[in-house]
């Protein structure tokens, strides 16, 4: 257990100290949100209506930013070989790395989202909903994303390929995340149903992601 907590602490330190990976995702998120009014016009009513979509797509893209370095950096300095050979199951190591990635990327996005939602003129009840759905949905995005990160670890230019591989798999999370968020804006549609499915998708990804990523890492390093 101490090996895993040491790994968790190491991942957090790396994310905070080198290049500020955690903050970069939030800044990118802000840039995407800033671009949207330029594209669709400054009409506040329209922005309030498409606000959940802007926030979710922005968070999804920002969540992909640092994924390609997740295993590649470890492979370059050799620590990935040690992780594969460690007595701790590789699936657990991958899980801890993904959790640390979520704490430094997904969680800041969810915390920043209400502020950005306010800039998009979203009603106050929707701000809480977007924070809640992003907090529940970004683990799903991260754990789907690590599969792509593990698949492309052995490739020299895996960054773009990674996005092409994992974005189709993220479609369900996006659909239910936006459905739950817009349910808070539109009173007629139910909130709890899509939200529970969103949570289920995240939990399912937490099971499938580490198994697939660990398998891909083992095959990739042979």
């Amino acid at each position: 257990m101490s090996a895993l907590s040491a790994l968790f602490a190491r991942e957090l330190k790396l994310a905070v100290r080198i290049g500020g990976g955690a903050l970069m995702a939030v800044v990118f998120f802000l840039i995407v949100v800033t671009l949207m009014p330029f594209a669709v016009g400054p009409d506040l009513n329209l922005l309030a209506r498409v606000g959940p979509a802007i926030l979710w797509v922005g968070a999804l893209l920002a969540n992909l930013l640092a994924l390609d370095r997740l295993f590649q950096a470890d492979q370059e300095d050799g620590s990935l070989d040690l992780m594969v050979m460690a007595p701790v199951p590789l699936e657990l190591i991958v899980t801890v790395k993904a959790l640390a990635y979520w704490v430094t990327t997904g969680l800041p996005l969810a915390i920043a989202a209400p502020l950005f939602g306010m800039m998009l003129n979203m009603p106050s009840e929707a701000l809480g909903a977007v924070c809640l759905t992003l907090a529940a949905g970004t683990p799903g995005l991260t754990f789907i994303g690590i599969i792509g990160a593990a698949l492309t670890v052995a490739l020299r230019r895996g960054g773009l390929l990674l996005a092409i591989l994992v974005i189709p798999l993220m479609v369900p999370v996006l659909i239910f995340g936006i459905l739950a968020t817009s349910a808070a804006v539109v009173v007629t549609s139910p909130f709890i149903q899509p939200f529970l499915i969103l949570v289920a998708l995240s939990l399912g990804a937490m099971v499938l992601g580490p198994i697939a990523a660990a398998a891909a890492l083992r095959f990739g390093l042979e």
Partner: protein
Amino acid sequence: MGLMDLANPTRFMAVSQRILPWMWGLAVAFLAAGLYMSFFLAPQDYQQGNTVRIMFIHVPAAWLAMMGYSIIALSSIGTLVWRHPLADVSARAAAPIGAAFTFIALVTGSLWGKPMWGAWWVWDARLTSVLVLFLMYLGLIALWRAFDDPARGARIVAVLALVGAINLPIIKFSVEWWNTLHQPASVFRMGGPTIHPALLWPLMVMAFGATLLFLAIHLAAMRNEVLRRRVRAMQITAARGVATAGAEDGEPELA
């Protein structure tokens, strides 16, 4: 002779060489009969007119789009569990063919949608999930091409193919949910579950012919892939031979 004997690449090449002409012949015969039936014997639909004939290409293509991914998923299990080289050859050969049939299904659906819905593309649940399937085919092909050594990429791509196979039903389910909540009025529904026999027979013949065509192309592509790998192996051996010859001239560490 059991199925496992076929798994020997040399025997596979011998047997497939004998089967392949028959499959081509049958596929051409069934497709010719099916096309004749669908263009001359099948009646016009009372609502859709002649555009109903697009269905005879569109529906088999959509079925084969799904069959193609099933072949890839089953072959990937073969790659991961038995590590058999032919399973990887099969998956790799099926991907472009499946993508092509998915593309045909999308294009014919779009051609049919213009007179029916008044738009080339409608964000209907079925269309959208087939589009996602097409994107996943492209992702698989891109990942295969990214590995310079086919043997190394085989099992990695197999992992992606299986993850995709698990996700496809989830994607289909969520896309349908998304569509029914957003625009329930425009969801296209066939005129009831029954289809008139005069339209059903051409469709069945076309579907059988198209399936034979898919399998024939798949088999031919597998043969090409096996030959391609042999050429690659021979090239590597030849390159090694050059290196060894150079080593005899006084650079032994190159060998």
